């Protein structure tokens, strides 16, 4: 398995086959960012590749401008992690398709991903979002993928105390396997529930403060803050990639300013 790891870094982006005739394949194979050693040995067949660390973004030759979601300027890898049943797949489907169908989800086995392109200040940012099985034993399968992630969304379920307590274990896992400068955000999902809630919003806030990461409560069911969570990540990743010292973006501030409470939620 590890034989292959050496060339993994270069492969993280580009589009799915159906859209790869867009920016994915055209243009020069040049990539931006420092080559941090990973993936530098072999010329990438794909135009888009990530060479560096988590800010190793890519600028394919900008064939974009098209409004279609096929085109993008930069691409990032985001991973959803957290205990089994906290709503990772639901959150992803809500973000990707704007849908929530109660009782139509099955347990995620293994690992899977979906793409979505966002317009962030007129830059088309493609998020390749990896959905993982939450059960503990699957971590030994999934943590191999942490290394290439630019951002991680760590979820817990506000109706499940154990999933909240386990975020510490998840964090340890993240520190061990993810890139040091990975963008991390804590999400308390299922915030639409009132009766079953056992984790207060303040508890989440306190924990996030301790971890030093942005926090918000979300609801895949109502749509609360779902868009925001991903948009905030995309903004942060995009700003990191420009390396313009004047171009400052503060993820924490942005989240604090934009975040909505469960009470005023509208889907």
């Amino acid at each position: 398995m590890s034989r292959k790891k050496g060339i993994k870094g270069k492969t993280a982006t580009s589009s799915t086959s159906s859209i790869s005739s867009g920016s994915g394949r055209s243009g020069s194979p040049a990539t931006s960012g420092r080559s941090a050693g990973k993936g530098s040995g072999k010329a990438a067949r794909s135009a888009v590749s990530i060479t560096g660390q988590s800010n190793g973004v890519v600028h394919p030759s900008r064939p974009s401008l098209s409004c279609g979601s096929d085109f993008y300027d930069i691409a990032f890898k985001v991973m959803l992690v957290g205990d089994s049943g906290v709503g990772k797949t639901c959150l992803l489907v809500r973000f990707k398709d704007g849908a929530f169908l109660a009782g139509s989800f099955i347990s995620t086995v293994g690992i899977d991903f979906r793409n979505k392109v966002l317009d962030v200040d007129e830059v088309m940012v493609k998020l390749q979002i990896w959905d993982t099985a939450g059960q503990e034993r699957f971590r030994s399968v999934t943590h191999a993928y942490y290394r290439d992630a630019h951002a991680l969304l760590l979820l817990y379920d506000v109706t499940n105390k154990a999933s909240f307590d386990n975020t510490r274990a998840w964090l340890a896992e993240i520190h061990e396997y993810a890139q040091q400068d990975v963008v991390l955000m804590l999400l308390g999902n299922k915030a639409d529930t009132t009766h079953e809630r056992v984790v207060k919003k303040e508890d989440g806030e306190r924990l996030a403060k301790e971890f030093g990461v942005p926090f918000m409560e979300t609801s895949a069911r109502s749509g609360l803050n779902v868009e925001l969570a991903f948009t905030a990540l995309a903004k942060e990743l995009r700003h990191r990639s420009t390396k313009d010292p004047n171009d400052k973006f503060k993820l924490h501030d942005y989240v604090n300013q934009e975040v909505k409470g469960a009470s005023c939620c509208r889907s």
Partner: protein
Amino acid sequence: MDRRRDAPAPDGTGSSLSRSPRQRGSSSGHGGAKDRVERGERPCSPPLKGKADALSVSSFPFSGSDYPVTVDPYGFERPEDFDFETYEQLMSEYLAVLTRRAIKWSKLLKGKNKVDKNNKMKRYVRKGVPNEHRTLVWMSASGAQQQLDRNPGYYQSVLGAQHDPKLVDTIRTDLNRTFPENVLFRKSSSTCLQKELYNVLVAFGHHSPSVGYCQGMNFIAGLLLIITRDEEKSFWLMETLLGRILPDYYSPSMLGLKTDQEVLGELVRERVPGVSGVMAEHGVMWSLVVSRWFICLYIDVLPVETVLRIWDCLFYEGSKILFRVALTIIHQHQAAMEEEARSLPDVCQSFKRMTLGPFVEDCHPFMQKIFTEPGSLSMATIAKLRATCRARILAEGS
């Protein structure tokens, strides 16, 4: 002959019939299909009768008409875009096969309650076990029946023992997430199998505490229940599968799973080098593309009828069948993959696409191909590769 002509098709040759909307990637539209089912439109034939009936010889040509046509004979909702025309075409051919096989099987078994293991039986199993004999053949050929006979009352006793609350919690998390698109797993259904599913999983978790519960086992127990409609038999079939037929896929280290993924990698390198090259070029780990194939034993990966045909052979011949299936599918798509895959996501997409379409839906020719296409594949070969790969993984891990 005519006895079967009225038989509603055992499904599976139809397209993506057992996949959840999530898996098909079209999460909208599910409600529509559901509504139609609830309204009971297009009433028709298929469906399953009440519990226990599945065991009786006459039950396979499901004689009830409890389900609308939007539900397949195993209770799975058909997707909204289900192509009935293609399905009818496939079924008209497959029904003839089923009829032929059913007659032969009836003669072979002649009311016997066990199967002998010999070349004739192996040939018969490879050509498909009629659904009315499936429980019997699976139980008998795998040795599960022998276990059940040797341990009368064991299932009830392990089920009645004190339960580990953590295990119970983990299992409960997945109950509603097991076949939500199957009418037999809806709480509203009079034949709801959720309680049985819970029992089988809890019993197994306590029977085998080193495994406990691993996601994926919910689908396996679920499908066993759909076929056998019998908790105790499902338990022993599960015990046989996980305890003897498969390596340790589901234990906390998942070492058996990791090993078999690498074994497949080796086999592909040897026999489908083109695909191996593409995988290496884009740095795709096998765990990314095939872990579900192994963990779910192709449930929700391939159409349900195809899965059942694979399981016929799995119970009779053992775990090498899983490699035969994988190699056949991968081989079939070698050219397309070399042509199209330009990146890691492309490769993942290719692997998803290869589990769809007529090649895997038309289960009878598909099952013939798995025994010819990949060439000879002995258990000794597999055992040797497993030993090598396992040692390599352990060395890397330490």
